[in-house]
């Protein structure tokens, strides 16, 4: 595939990610922060987000498997996840965190368990999508194509 086709594919893919709600305007903010002084900014921030998310999702699962559930601790963890997902523009993950928080505040364990599954699912979807996005960007850059503006 030549640079022009790749570029078009990247533009279309990005548009899809936004229209399907995987990403929101905060992601665009991150893209706009990337420049020649900070050429890998988006990948770096998103990598931090992936690391944090995996850790937090594991913590939530662990908390929910305890005999005595520490709702306060879970609230703190989901607050963190909600914060990071919001900051990178991972819109659907952020929304699922809001739902989890509601169940957590109501001390509804069943609700939390179900919601955690949803959060894991949303996270794995956006992770896949972002990895594909970065891959397309990388391919485009390898062919010498100019990246589309955010």
């Amino acid at each position, binding site marked *: 595939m030549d640079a022009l086709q790749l570029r078009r594919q990247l533009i279309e893919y990005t548009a899809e990610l936004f229209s399907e709600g995987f990403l929101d305007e*905060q992601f665009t903010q*991150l893209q706009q922060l990337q420049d020649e002084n900070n050429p890998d900014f988006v990948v770096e921030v998103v990598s931090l987000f992936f690391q944090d998310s995996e850790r937090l999702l594991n913590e939530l699962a662990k908390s929910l498997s305890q005999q005595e559930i520490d709702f306060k601790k879970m609230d*703190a963890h989901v607050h963190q996840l909600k914060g*990071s997902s919001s900051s990178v523009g991972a819109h659907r993950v952020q929304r699922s965190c809001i739902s989890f928080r509601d169940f957590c505040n109501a001390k509804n364990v069943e609700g939390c368990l179900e919601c955690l599954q949803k959060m894991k699912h949303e996270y794995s979807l956006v992770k896949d999508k972002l990895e594909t996005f970065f891959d397309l960007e990388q391919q485009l850059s390898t062919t010498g194509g100019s990246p589309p503006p955010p």
Partner: protein
Amino acid sequence: MASYYASSSSSGEVTADHRDFPHVLAVDDNHVDRKIIETMLRNSSCRVTTVENGTRALEYLGLRDGQPNSATLVSSAGCQFPVMVILPSSYEIPMPIQQASKVNLVITDYCMPGMTGYELLKKIKGSSFLKEVPVVIVSSENVPTRINKCLEEGAKMFMLKPLKQSDVKKLRCHLLNCRS
């Protein structure tokens, strides 16, 4: 605000006017947010130090157990402006004494485990040598009582997350002698 800058030749730092490159301390327990605020501030011509909690923020600012430590007393003499410091999350690098007094603005998250941003604000405002340092609070939650409480305690601004570059540019202009 007096424009004062002492060169810290011991640290090998560039002697730039602080008005051009104010030193900001950003406090946030969230790693992703620290990286983002750091970049946004650097893009607004600020020097940035990030820390992950209020305790480290106070240590960097030179306050220990509510009292300035002796090193800070030496450096704060003649320092006429509040300092904002963003501490690096690694914080193993020994900072030159003079650097701690050159924080021109503190920007802190509200919700943090241990010491909240509000508690950090109170400690800064309650300190005779730090109280002039402007403090900005950021939060993902839009709670009017929280906002009022922070402003009443002396926060210069309260901003909602997620932050945009334009928010940080405005902040820099309003609080740190905007120079285009």
